[in-house]
């Protein structure tokens, strides 16, 4: 079942293997029945950890409980998440190239009017909005991940034309990609000296430290998500040139 990959995408959507069908229906039905009984047996009086979090919210340095959980109470999760994102980016980075600059703007002759207007007007607005989301994350819904995702969306918009190109293996890009993980680990281990345990912020500076980590995380997440998108485009250009070489030979 897993050892073939259909090239025709318009084939039948279902494998005609009855055994896997029956097995999956059975397993999914069993899971569904068990969890539904568990959920129905819950009386709804349990509040989870909400009371603990609201009691300790002053200790975290921010007033938005989700940001407090993400970057203070369970900062370890966020640290590992950023590490996972970095590992994925390392796995799919396009070809190694030290010489082209980090950001390049190429003048293209054929201009798509709608696209260039979108790039001129929407992208700066998205950047401002992402900055607001990052700043508002301390006390309102928002934060580093949302801001990074918005900026990555803006970069996807920029990549729609061939005008803008980013080299993800230039030294600047490397520094920016590992920036958040480096800052996070440095602050976390430095706090062992001052506070006695990993990632325990001092009460006076916690808001500032969280904002610093979030800003670095926004930059790194933006670049990481943008590289995930442009890995498909970069490989495409590469394979086209490969094909040309092949036909010439």
């Amino acid at each position: 079942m897993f050892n073939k990959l259909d090239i025709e995408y318009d084939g039948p959507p279902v494998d005609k293997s009855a055994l896997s069908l029956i097995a999956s229906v059975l397993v999914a039905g069993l899971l569904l029945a068990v969890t539904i009984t568990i959920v129905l047996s819950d009386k709804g009086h349990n509040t989870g950890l909400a009371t603990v979090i609201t009691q300790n919210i002053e200790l975290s340095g921010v007033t938005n409980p989700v940001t407090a959980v993400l970057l203070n109470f369970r900062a370890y999760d966020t640290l590992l998440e950023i590490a996972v994102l970095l590992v994925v980016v390392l796995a799919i980075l396009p070809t190694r190239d030290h010489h082209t600059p980090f950001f390049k703007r190429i003048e293209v002759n054929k201009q798509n009017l709608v696209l260039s207007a979108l790039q001129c007007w929407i992208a700066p607005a998205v950047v401002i909005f992402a900055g607001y989301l990052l700043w508002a994350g301390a006390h309102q819904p928002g934060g580093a991940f949302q801001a990074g995702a918005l900026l990555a969306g803006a970069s996807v918009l920029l990549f729609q034309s061939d005008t803008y190109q980013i080299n993800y293996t230039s030294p600047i890009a490397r520094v920016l990609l590992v920036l958040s993980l480096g800052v996070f680990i440095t602050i976390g281990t430095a706090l062992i000296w001052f506070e006695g345990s990993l990632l325990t912020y001092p009460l006076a500076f916690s808001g500032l430290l969280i904002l610093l980590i979030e800003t670095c995380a926004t930059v790194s997440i933006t670049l990481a998500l943008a590289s995930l998108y442009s890995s498909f485009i970069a490989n495409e250009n590469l394979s086209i040139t490969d094909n040309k070489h092949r036909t010439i030979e």
Partner: protein
Amino acid sequence: MTSALFYSMAGLALFAIGFFGVVVASHVMRKILALNVMGVGIFMFLIALAKRNPLVVDPLPHALVLTGIVIAVAGTALALNLMVRIHHIDQSSQEQSK
């Protein structure tokens, strides 16, 4: 029966649909989409259970889901890259056999 329970069951149903799709679908891209549908179902289940008490919203599952969304998109990107790579190898080997 509150609306949160309603949503949590919908999340479970989405998970079941996704699981069914992962096993049964023929194309690898359909399998990846089914994995993502499974993920949406799990996130929905967690968020609905965070609100099972109608007066209190538990922020801890929200933080977990926020982490999970980013991990899910990273995993999807990796899977899609592998799929494209396999497809190209497949195609070039077919061209060679011709």
